[in-house]
């Protein structure tokens, strides 16, 4: 009886999610192929909106800005985040906990607070533009990198790094040759996560971009205020698909990594029980 009820509840839950989250997206995707400007009438299949999209210089520019921004901010955030994770990991237990709370707060903080705070801060030092958006994206990306590298760092056995130092490697060589290969999964998934977050962001970008610079999301917002054009459906559809793919990549990297680690440590454990054979 209880089982049945549980089953029913979980079905309802899935149905609601589909209804409220995925059906609108599905409608959006359908509309992006709709050969009619109407939002309710199906006028046949067309790729015109997509063609219009790529013909539009403004959109192309926003796309390039978005990608460059995502790539650069993810890369820099990864470098800073990995160094930060190493530093935090080496701290005493108390400081470690404090630092991890500081790392967590920006992730939970409302975007609008972060956005306005960063804007107020930036306008004192630099002109708002690509530079300030880049700085903002690096800032909110760093915690994601730290969060994805830290568990791996904790699981990693530090004595392999010490063994490398012991055998004559200096600190940098030991890190790149021995530690980094072990952390690569976390580093990659951190990078892709940061990349996705950057593409995905609207609020923080909106407040820190100033005039003249547009990413896809801020551009769509600007366009939609003027009136809804079907090109925007096509653009939103593309963004949705790109982000979906990135998330799948992140998940895949994470899962593979998990499996590899588990395999290694399971092997280690079973080895300890093995019999002595000469």
């Amino acid at each position, binding site marked *: 009886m209880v089982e049945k009820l549980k089953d029913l509840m979980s079905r309802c839950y899935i149905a609601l999610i589909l209804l409220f989250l995925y059906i609108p997206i599905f409608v959006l995707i359908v509309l992006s192929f709709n050969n009619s400007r109407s939002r309710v009438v199906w006028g046949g299949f067309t790729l015109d909106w997509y063609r219009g999209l790529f013909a539009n210089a403004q959109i192309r520019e926003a796309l390039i800005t978005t990608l460059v921004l995502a790539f650069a901010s993810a890369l820099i955030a990864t470098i800073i985040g990995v160094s930060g994770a190493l530093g935090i990991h080496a701290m005493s237990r108390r400081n470690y906990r404090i630092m991890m709370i500081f790392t967590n707060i920006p992730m939970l903080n409302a975007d609008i607070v972060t956005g306005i705070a960063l804007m107020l801060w930036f306008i004192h030092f630099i002109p708002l533009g690509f530079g300030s958006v880049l700085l903002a994206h690096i800032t909110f990306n760093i915690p994601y990198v730290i969060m994805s590298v830290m568990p791996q760092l904790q699981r990693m056995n530090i004595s392999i790094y010490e063994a490398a*130092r012991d055998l004559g490697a200096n600190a940098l060589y030991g890190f790149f040759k021995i530690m980094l290969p072990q952390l690569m999964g976390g580093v990659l998934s951190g990078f892709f996560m940061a990349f996705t977050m950057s593409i995905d962001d609207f609020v923080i970008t909106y407040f820190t971009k100033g005039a003249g610079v547009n990413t896809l999301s801020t551009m769509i917002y600007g366009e939609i205020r003027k009136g809804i054009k079907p090109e925007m459906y096509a653009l939103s559809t593309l963004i949705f698909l790109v982000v979906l793919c990135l998330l799948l990549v992140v998940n895949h990297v994470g899962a593979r990594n998990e499996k590899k680690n588990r395999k290694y440590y399971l092997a280690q454990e079973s080895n300890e029980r093995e019999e002595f054979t000469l």
Partner: protein
Amino acid sequence: MQDIILELDSVSKSFDGKKILNNFSLGINRNEFITLLGPSGCGKSTTLRIIGGFERPDEGRVLFDGRDITGLSPDKRNVNTVFQKYSLFPHMNVEENIAFGLQLKKKSREYIRDKVRYALKLVNMEGYEKRSPTSLSGGQQQRVAIARAIVNEPQVLLLDEPLGALDLKLRQGMQRELIKIKKEVGITFVYVTHDQEEALTMSDRIIVMNKGIIQQIGSSKSIYDEPQNAFVADFIGESNIIDGIMRRDCLVEIQGAKIPCVDVGFGKDELVDVVIRPEDLVLVEEEEGYLKGMVISTIFKGAYYEIKVRVGEYEWMVQSVNPAPVGTMKGLTILPDNIQIMHKPHSADAEVSKEND
């Protein structure tokens, strides 16, 4: 004349305000197999990590061949370490693991190949060059770790419980092999273990430590036969440790019984610790013993019976080849030679060992 290769000079180290090593001084001779032995948390690994360069002492110096190396990083020391476990590079095969140190020293490819082959032969692992560390058993991994350290021809090899993760049978086999390897390469071994049997069978010299303080340094035999304080006696093998009073030279009073011994030079009526090994006590008929008590348990241990006899408040541990029925009254005797008399601790250092009993 002693040839000291490595010296710790009044080293102290604290973690989080807790003193782990306290004014620790130690000289290690060239080509010696020296073992640090002590209970968990007594600072053995910390000592080794200070020698290896992974921890910096708060006070004191580390000297190598008379040269101060206290501030030198691990990669600049002519010392290599075999860690407890999991220290092979998992993304490299056995050959690459062993060649790691030599490649950093920019040795020629032929030299490296020969050295790797020699090292694998030394640890009995020929033909494993291309295997991944994850596909090896625990014992095999430790042998590769030893090979990886030894190819660099360090003057001192540090081993931190290298066999700690292995089961008993495997451990005993590896102990024999380690001694063989030590003979072959002729370098100084500094070995850490908390297993007293391992220490006793392998070492030239043993350092028994507790709470960051050296309790006794000596050969296996002298540590076992002549423990200098109650902590060492208790930690090394099983012992009966009981209060006694030295009535005069060669006569000690234990639980009211006057028993002849061989120790001289104590003050008259001095309070002492008396150590008697269970295998040295002899069970006899009640009236023939110095001490009389009731058998309260008898456990068969394979080669002997472990028998507990209660005399007054104290339970004597006796090892005997013959069982004794529980509940019977028995006497205990002992040869004068087998009684070990020790001064009661009065210094603060020795007091530490007492607390830990």
